[in-house]
């Protein structure tokens, strides 16, 4: 792989080399950053008040074009330390073009090791996805990325029912070295009804959302999330954890309707 690239450089002409260099260096978010994108989102403006966020420092990864707006993979990574007294305290995600732009709000602690998540979101058409992060020192960072959603009969989704409602899955790294960061994956089977959809008879299906998700390690909070309707059905969240010793992770999900469910996973630290 490396070798192939090197030989291209030698062989490609100037324009080719430039194109290639651009290709190698392009940070995923740089292609479509529009620094003022949060200005157009009312709840984002409210959050910020007079604060001026610094553009850059948040990397968003989304497919540039997707054929399935009902489940778009999203990765967000905040490039900032996660140490006591200086860490990313909260990450706010917005889908600027959705009927209600709030997507999720995620609070981290230094126990997470990194401020980074993977999830799946719903996008109602082509738009800009925006992320704001607040550090424990009160600074704001911002990032944005455009995504084009095309309708395609070939990949159209049959609006299926969700089976095994409230069934949860978790997976933690089974072994870590002290101070090492490992990925935790979580999923809950849930339709995440938006309240904007009608059934076959034309009756509106009431909103039903998994609203909060919390993770603790031995009683200390690792992460706390609040979900909105732009989270895809079967909410999925991958996030890091960096425990100093062995112990148990506990997971708590809670619906609007009041139903809740928990899970546990143990981590061995050597």
């Amino acid at each position, binding site marked *: 792989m490396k070798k*192939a690239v090197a*030989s*291209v450089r030698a*062989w*490609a*002409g*100037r*324009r*080719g*080399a430039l*194109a*290639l260099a651009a*290709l190698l260096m*392009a940070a*995923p978010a740089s292609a479509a950053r529009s620094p003022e994108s949060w200005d157009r989102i009312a709840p984002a403006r409210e959050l910020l008040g007079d604060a001026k966020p610094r553009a850059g420092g948040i990397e968003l990864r989304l*497919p*540039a*074009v*997707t*054929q*399935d707006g*009902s*489940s778009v*993979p999203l990765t967000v990574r905040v490039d900032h330390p996660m140490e006591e007294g200086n860490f990313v305290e909260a990450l706010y995600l917005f889908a600027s073009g959705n009927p209600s732009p709030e997507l999720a709000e995620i609070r981290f602690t230094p126990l997470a090791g990194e401020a980074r998540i993977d999830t799946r979101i719903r996008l109602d058409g082509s738009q800009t996805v925006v992320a704001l992060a607040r550090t424990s020192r009160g600074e704001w960072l911002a990032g944005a990325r455009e995504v*084009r959603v*095309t*309708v*395609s*009969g*070939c*990949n*159209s*989704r*049959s609006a*299926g029912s*969700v*089976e*095994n409602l409230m069934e949860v*899955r*978790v*997976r933690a790294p089974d072994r870590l070295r002290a101070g090492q960061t490992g990925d935790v*994956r979580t*999923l809950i*089977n849930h339709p995440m009804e938006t309240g904007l959809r009608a059934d076959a008879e034309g009756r509106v299906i009431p909103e039903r959302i998994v609203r909060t998700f919390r993770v603790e390690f031995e009683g200390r909070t690792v992460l706390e999330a609040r979900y909105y309707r732009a989270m895809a*059905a*079967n909410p*999925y969240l991958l996030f890091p954890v960096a425990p100093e010793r062995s112990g148990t992770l506990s997971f708590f999900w809670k619906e609007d309707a009041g139903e809740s469910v928990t899970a546990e996973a143990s981590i061995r630290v050597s």
Partner: protein
Amino acid sequence: MKAIPGISRREALRLLGVVGAGSLLGAALPLKARSLGSARVVVVGGGFGGATAAKYLKRFAPSLDVTLVEPQRRFYTCPFTNLYLGGLRDFESLGHDYRQLTDHYGVTVVHERAEAVDTERKEIRLSGGAALSWDRLVLSPGIDFRWGELEGYDEAAAVKAPHAWKAGPQTMLLRRQLEAMPDGGTFILVAPDNPFRCPPGPYERVSMIAHYLRTEKPRSKILLLDAKDSFSKQGLFMEGWKENYGDLIEWVPRSSDGRVLRVDAGRLEVETEFGEIHRADVLNVVPPQKAGFIAERAGVADETGWVPVNPKTFESTRVPGIYVIGDATQAAPMPKSGFVANTQAKITARAIAADLAGKAPPDPKWANTCYSLIAPGWGITVAGVYDVHDGNLREVPDSGGVSPLGADRSFRAREATYAEAWYAGIAHDTWGTRPGA
């Protein structure tokens, strides 16, 4: 009129040692099209996109000097390999040669691989070491795999757990493994996330393998582990599976832990995202994909691994003068299908001919139909028409659709015969070959 830089065609051919029937055709060309000069177009890849482009370039502008670069002397189509796996077709019936393109259409075919692209000098370097220069370059290299992106799945692993996602030895290996599988065994197919070649392909494949197993090894099971929560023609496939195979096929979507993160080809085991281990007797892994390697070497692919193109002409947005078609492109909402590659090729051939004649490209419309066979005499389709709207590709509203759910057997049987006819038709349109010939 465009100048012809570099070596002349005849010289190049001598250099390559491929002087043959094709090189004499210049004399036989009609004179009226000489106004385009004998500009040279090189087409890389003799599959659905490339072979069609080469042929139609000669049809639209007979005086063009068109060279097709394709390492294989006989091309085997992915379409209908699933029927071969199900025991409904023999493998040779999927092979097509290039004789019609050279003898009848005047395309020069060079059986080598393009190894590098010099965009400054407008030359490609071939595996034999020679160079070919172009005025316009068309790339239709299909896909390559992202080896290693799925942990444990590299080229060595594919010898034990085939992908069979390019037609050839891999397809035959999978068939041999199925034949050797004991009755009562488990066949596992691992399906990737979007985008990938042939969205309905994995689902047609398990259908055809279900047909084979039900007939020959009725105690066996099929597990389809999917990185997605939905797929192309899902309702129709599910209905057809139930009607034809009962519960032989189990589909595990992403939200039920269907996404595979690690493959152990030696043990024929896969591990899912939430840690479940599944063991197969025959393991078929369709790995994550990207544009064929030459796209990256030409500098036309972006960080996604696919090629962004100008929607109207499919000229690269990164390197002018290079056109890219077929699976290698980012052409959503068009699916990565042979049908689409074939229509893209014709539209791009028109755009190139127009450009060389100093004219504007025509307003394009593309079409697609993907047939899938669920069982013998049980076909289903999805169709769509695409155009450029506000500078982007889109599916024309209400243009296409899928077969109806709940249709009777005679309806499904008719669609199965349309599928056969489609195959014969597109093969003839692409390579000029006729089935059985």
